[in-house]
């Protein structure tokens, strides 16, 4: 059955950053240099081809973009400056917006104004919310104790509520991702067994990003890993040890040492990334989407306000600490509420998931191919294509 080409799709992708993809003439250098590109996930070339021809459905069903860590080798090697790396990046953005059923993510990626606007709005609301709450609770001059302006317990509760909401979005989107890439493919003989067998990949890739380490330059991996781990540490601290953290003025080193390290990680990593992007130091930093800037800046300011608030609190300037806390929270909330499910931060979930699903899919495919048919290209006999992609 023939697939309808849609020359218009490329225009839809442009806001996501896919500007040079039409320059590609499929020499295949990109896929050749990519350390991850291997049957059945031969990228960047294949997704680029789909994109050029506007095969939207096929693109939506692709895991390939998530298997790329954007080391930039492909873009460096491309004889046509078709920026395969950036194309993969923009495909990840586009896919994120496709997974997201609310449509928010599409708005964010298509216009930075929306994203920034949303962030500001949520920030303001949070600020107002917490201020009113604080006033109703205690006095601005008290940070700890019974009269505390923002008692950790209540913030803790709020965190959990927020986390719950985010999970709903994130999981539902992840579910859609599964549906597009796996669920829909009727003739893909996946088994529950294979799902379970590959399950280990989720945590492994989440925590180690071990594949990234296979890229030629190790630097980005380290930074990327540092940023992610710091973030996760911070998340864990906040979700489980918030009270121990907040309580003062004495410093509970058992938790704080982790906190300090994480903070340092966040600050250094984001600054490093920002610097690279500003300097366009290498391929993967050459094209920065607005969402990238917003994301990094957001984390940085969150971290900085956190630090400031911590210092003020420990130095007993409770009132100032509380105000900073409000500011801090009104940055944390949009970061969590908007970035995690609807924007860049979501790849935290999608990438490991994709690697996991890719494994399941590959096993299924090899089983199917052994049987002679190739569900990757329904209807087509295996190995019929002239240029294997």
């Amino acid at each position, binding site marked *: 059955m023939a697939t309808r*080409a849609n*020359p218009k799709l490329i225009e839809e992708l442009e806001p996501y950053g896919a500007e040079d993809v039409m320059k590609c003439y499929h020499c295949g250098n990109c896929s050749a240099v990519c350390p991850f590109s291997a049957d059945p996930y031969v990228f960047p070339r294949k997704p680029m081809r789909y994109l050029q021809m506007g095969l939207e459905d*096929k693109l939506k069903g692709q895991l390939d973009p998530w298997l790329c860590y954007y080391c930039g080798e492909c873009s460096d090697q491309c004889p046509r400056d078709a920026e395969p790396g950036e194309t993969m990046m923009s495909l990840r953005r586009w896919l994120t917006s496709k997974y997201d059923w609310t449509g928010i993510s599409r708005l964010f990626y298509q216009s930075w104004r929306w994203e920034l606007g949303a962030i500001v709005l949520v920030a303001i609301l949070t600020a107002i919310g917490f201020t009113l709450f604080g006033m109703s609770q205690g006095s601005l001059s008290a940070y700890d104790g019974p009269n505390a302006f923002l008692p950790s317990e209540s913030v803790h509760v709020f965190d959990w509520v927020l986390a719950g909401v985010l999970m709903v979005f994130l999981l539902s989107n992840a579910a859609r991702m599964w549906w597009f890439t796996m669920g829909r493919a009727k003739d893909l003989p996946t088994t529950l067994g294979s799902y379970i067998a590959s399950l280990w990949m989720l945590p492994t890739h989440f925590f180690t990003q071990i594949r990234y380490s296979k890229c030629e330059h190790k630097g980005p991996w380290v930074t990327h890993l540092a940023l992610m781990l710091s973030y996760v540490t911070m998340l864990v601290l906040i979700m489980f040890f918030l009270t121990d953290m907040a309580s003062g003025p004495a410093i509970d080193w058992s938790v704080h040492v982790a906190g300090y390290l994480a903070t340092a990680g966040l600050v250094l990593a984001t600054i490093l990334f920002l610097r690279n992007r500003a300097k366009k130091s290498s391929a993967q930093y050459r094209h920065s989407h607005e969402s990238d800037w917003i994301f990094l800046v957001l984390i940085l300011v969150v971290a900085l306000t956190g630090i400031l608030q911590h210092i003020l609190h420990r130095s007993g300037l409770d009132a100032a600490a509380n105000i900073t806390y409000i500011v801090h929270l009104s940055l944390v909330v949009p970061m969590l509420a908007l970035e995690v499910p609807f924007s860049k931060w979501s790849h935290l979930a999608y990438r490991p998931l994709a690697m996991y699903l890719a494994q399941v899919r590959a096993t299924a495919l090899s089983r199917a191919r052994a049987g002679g048919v190739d569900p990757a290209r329904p209807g087509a006999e295996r190995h019929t294509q002239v240029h294997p992609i």
Partner: protein
Amino acid sequence: MTEKRIGVYVCNCGTNIANVVDCDAVAEAAADLPGVVVSRSYKYMCSNPGQEMITQDIRDEQLERVVVAACSPRMHEPTFRRAAETAGLNPYLVQMANIREQCSWVHDAGEMATEKAKDLVRAAVYRVTRHESLERLSVDMCPHTLVLGGGIAGMSAALELADAGKRVYLVERTKALGGNVARVDLTAPYLDSARDMMTDRVTRVIEHPDVSVMLESELEKLEGFVGNFKATISHHSSGEGPPIEVVDVGSVIVCTGYKEFDASRVTHFGYGKLPDVITSFEFEGMLKQGRIEMKDGRLPQYVAIVHCVGSRSEEFHGYCSRVCCMTALKYAHEVKSALPRTYVSDVYVDMHAFGKGCEDFYRRSAEVKTLFLMYGKGDHPVVRRADPGDDCEMLITVDEQLSGEQIELPADLIILMVGMEAREDSEQVTHLVNISQDKDGWFIESHPKLDPVATTTDGVYIAGACQAPKDIPDSVAQARAAAARILGKISRGKLEIDAMFAAVNEDLCSGCRVCNEICPYSAIEFDAETKRSHVISALCKACGACVATCPSAAIEAKHFTDEQIFAEIAGVLA
């Protein structure tokens, strides 16, 4: 027949010959042959030292005959004849034995190859002993030139010659000059206007005092030989002047061009059935009109360009038409610049972007977001009407090679890049001017690499797309090259024609007139008075048909006499 002093030279051609044939053994064997006074084996006979070796021996050893066992005489016979001449030996006293193309390159090393080489050398020695000195005929070179075809090639050649002050008769079959290029809008890859270059040339040709343009005219007959042709030209225009005209010319340049492939021979594109499937030339017409539109006047949202229509296919022409790829890219550019909102797809087999500026042009057409789809050489896209309500008029199904997917491509306007093919009248032309065609009908040049403008008929040249599919620069270059060759001949005033021709020994001729009909050039004349036939040597092209036919052995083929060939037969079999 008295013995002659013969020198034998066995060329090793580096290792080309020596690796297979034991050259020294061949030289030694030759030394024992009757008359051989010098026999040498040397690395490169055609090199200067090699040639000097021969000239030196001719002087020192008073050689009367020379045998060179080396490459094909078609390759280096002229070289060694010149060498002999410089040493004062008549060039026709040299004979070559082809032990490379027809021995070392085609046989396995060893005894048999060496034996064959020995036989060939022996034959050459036997033959050369019977060679005679021949004097080349020197004839006048008529400075006028006949150019067939008023296309870009024909006009370029005509101007080149006329600007040098030589008279040119430019014969064009149609009513107007310009040929196929006149039907084109812009040209790839620099997108400059074909019209501009045309108008300039056409006016110059028409106004040029030394060019007589003959429109609606045809060559009826070409008699004579290099430097001295008589061309009979018929005029079909009902205008003034006689219907038949005979002009004297020294040379002929054939620039009869090509004809476009007839797209209706291919059924699967729906050409002729679907209104918006058009050929490249029809599209050029549209571009010249300045409006790209569909039959119903609407602007196309999707334009698809299909390559290799009639070219590089099993069923039609196996060859590549060479200009279509860049023309297609040109269309992509022209469409994009005229209708920026229109999507252009380019359905191709392979992108042939050789030539100056072309690869760059290809890159640029990718940058204007042309969608390239590749189909297999054996395969072909199929066009069908789209369902009503679809956002396009037609759908092209392509088994797309770069994705391995079967793709349905939307299209409102489909441009078929029709290839070039030899004109129907090209066979007629070959007979008129005595040149030959290859299997595809293109005229054959004298040497594909070293002599691409001359033909096997002396004085007749080919230029432009009548020789093979060609773009404008190549056609012009070839046309001017041909003109330059002719100017060279003219400047020498006289020209030497090969001394090889047939001659009747009237003492042996019985006037039976068997030979009269045999000669394709009517070079044999029967004298009713003396009751003898004789050969007009200038008309004779030395094929030897009459010689083999004459039952009285009264006709001799200079340099290919019975005696010489018998000697050769005896030589290879001795």
